[in-house]
């Protein structure tokens, strides 16, 4: 079970403009990824682009697995043009993943934009514990995987910037209001989040204010994915920590924004 493996593409479909879901069949048995783990994907056999691209596990399908990605630049653009049957070279699963021993009574999941990619994996695993899933996106169109989330019985609370689905505005504000309503029981919640930096910053403030415990998945440019290049650090209360090794999931109170 090597963490360096080849996988053939079963499907690589566009969900909405610039957003793709790729289903991969590893050509050998691989280690089962935890939610929050990620893979370093070589988007081509050529040396262009040079570095692998980090992408989170989105869904594990009994040996096969899915990644949900957005075309952000040249690497993901090349990936989006790959066809079923094409072979990708992949490294992973990598990183620490979300902690799965959760003692709190309630679980709050917050996904912003593409943050739904890893949060889906976590939600699926935690669904028996009835987590409250908050999901924000720019528009209704960019709310991905809603049907699948509903199928899991997760029934997300939604906000969009333009109000085209759910509440209009910021998902953190929605969560804020809910917390205000149930303030007494808030300390018995565990918060997990992934999304754009401004969202995570706002959540951190909220968590601090209410003494809410939790974890967030962060991003940083990466070269090795293995902890050797020291390229992917983020500032924490313990000094610089590697997103690929000590992360990508960090306790909220340790993150220094």
């Amino acid at each position: 079970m090597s963490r360096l493996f080849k996988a053939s593409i079963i499907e690589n479909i566009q969900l909405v403009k610039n957003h793709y879901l790729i289903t991969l069949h590893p050509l050998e048995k691989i280690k089962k990824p935890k939610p929050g783990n990620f893979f370093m994907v070589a988007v081509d056999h050529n040396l262009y682009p040079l570095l692998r691209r980090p992408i989170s596990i989105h869904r594990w399908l009994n040996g096969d697995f899915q990644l949900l990605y957005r075309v952000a630049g040249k690497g993901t653009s090349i990936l989006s043009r790959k066809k079923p049957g094409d072979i990708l070279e992949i490294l992973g699963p990598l990183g620490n993943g979300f902690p799965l021993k959760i003692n709190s009574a309630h679980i709050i999941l917050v996904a912003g934009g593409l943050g739904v990619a890893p949060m889906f994996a976590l939600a699926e695993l935690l669904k028996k514990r009835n987590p409250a899933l908050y999901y924000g996106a720019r528009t209704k169109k960019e709310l991905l995987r809603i049907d699948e989330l509903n199928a899991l019985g997760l029934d997300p609370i939604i906000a969009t910037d333009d109000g085209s689905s759910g509440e209009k505005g910021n998902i953190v504000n929605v969560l804020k209001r809910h917390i205000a309503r149930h303030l007494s029981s808030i300390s018995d919640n565990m918060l997990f989040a992934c999304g754009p930096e401004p969202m995570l910053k706002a959540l951190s403030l909220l968590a601090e204010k209410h003494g809410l415990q939790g974890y967030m998945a962060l991003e940083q440019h990466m070269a090795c994915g293995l902890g050797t290049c020291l390229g992917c650090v983020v500032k924490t209360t313990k000094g610089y920590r590697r997103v690929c090794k000590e992360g990508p999931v960090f306790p909220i109170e340790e993150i220094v924004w």
Partner: protein
Amino acid sequence: MADKKSINLTVMIGKLKLKNPVMTASGTFGYGDEYAEFIDLNRLGAIVVKGLSLKPKEGNPPPRIVETPSGMLNAIGLQNIGINNFIRNKLPFLRTVKTPVIVNFFGDSIAEYVRAAEKLSEADGVHALEMNISCPNKQAGWSIFGTDPHVTSKVVSAVRKATEKTLIVKLSPNVTDIGLMARVAEDAGADAVSLINTLTGMAIDIKTRRPRLANIIGGLSGPAVKPVAVRMVWQCYQAVRIPVIGMGGIVSPEDAIEFILAGASAVAVGTGNFIRPDITMDVLNGITAFMKTEGIKSINDIKGGVQC
């Protein structure tokens, strides 16, 4: 055709004998342990670890990495766990590997270089020292040790006196005359020179109008720099008698052989490890295969063998 058994891959770097010329480049292979999962570390010619200083260093703020065409810029800022920590927590594992360990180190003053060299020389399991002179010099307005021949000469001489271990001086390519810098290192007592370290570069995000690296400038590595590296290795090979260790953009056995033909006694794979963590084994296997097909008995037979 030479058969596999009769192929001689061993090379000498100072007093150090390597079973083959394929090393790792400092800063791209951590302290070796992370790669044990992907390759048999025992098969490497040498493991060169991330650059160490007396005290642990925090390094630069992120972002520290940017991709560039066929290359990458890094500004790690020499983050490291410090020599003591290395000796205590990393060397024990490395001692279990049957591959020489070369410790890359630096300081921000000559005194620090000397103390670092002394400390490392006493440690069990350190087979050679590689001094990184592309490092800012506190006493000289933070200019780099490795770009002024006088400063280079001073710091190398001082370290030479401080250690009996094989001493490799890692040259900065950001100089007008690399051959001169190699000669300066040789004259100051180096047992070998290694090159190239990264070329200084910069990238700007035109949307934010900010440098893509928090440190503004960083070091360029990867296939993009290979032509410059091969040229410099060739120039150093002609300039000095001590062995030259070649690196800069090696991602295939062909690349490695190119450096050896240019004059490298051994080669190091850097950025390539990020592309494929088992790349060193491909390079090694490919060198052996090439020697077999070409009927080359000893790797030393083709060292500097480019016909100009």
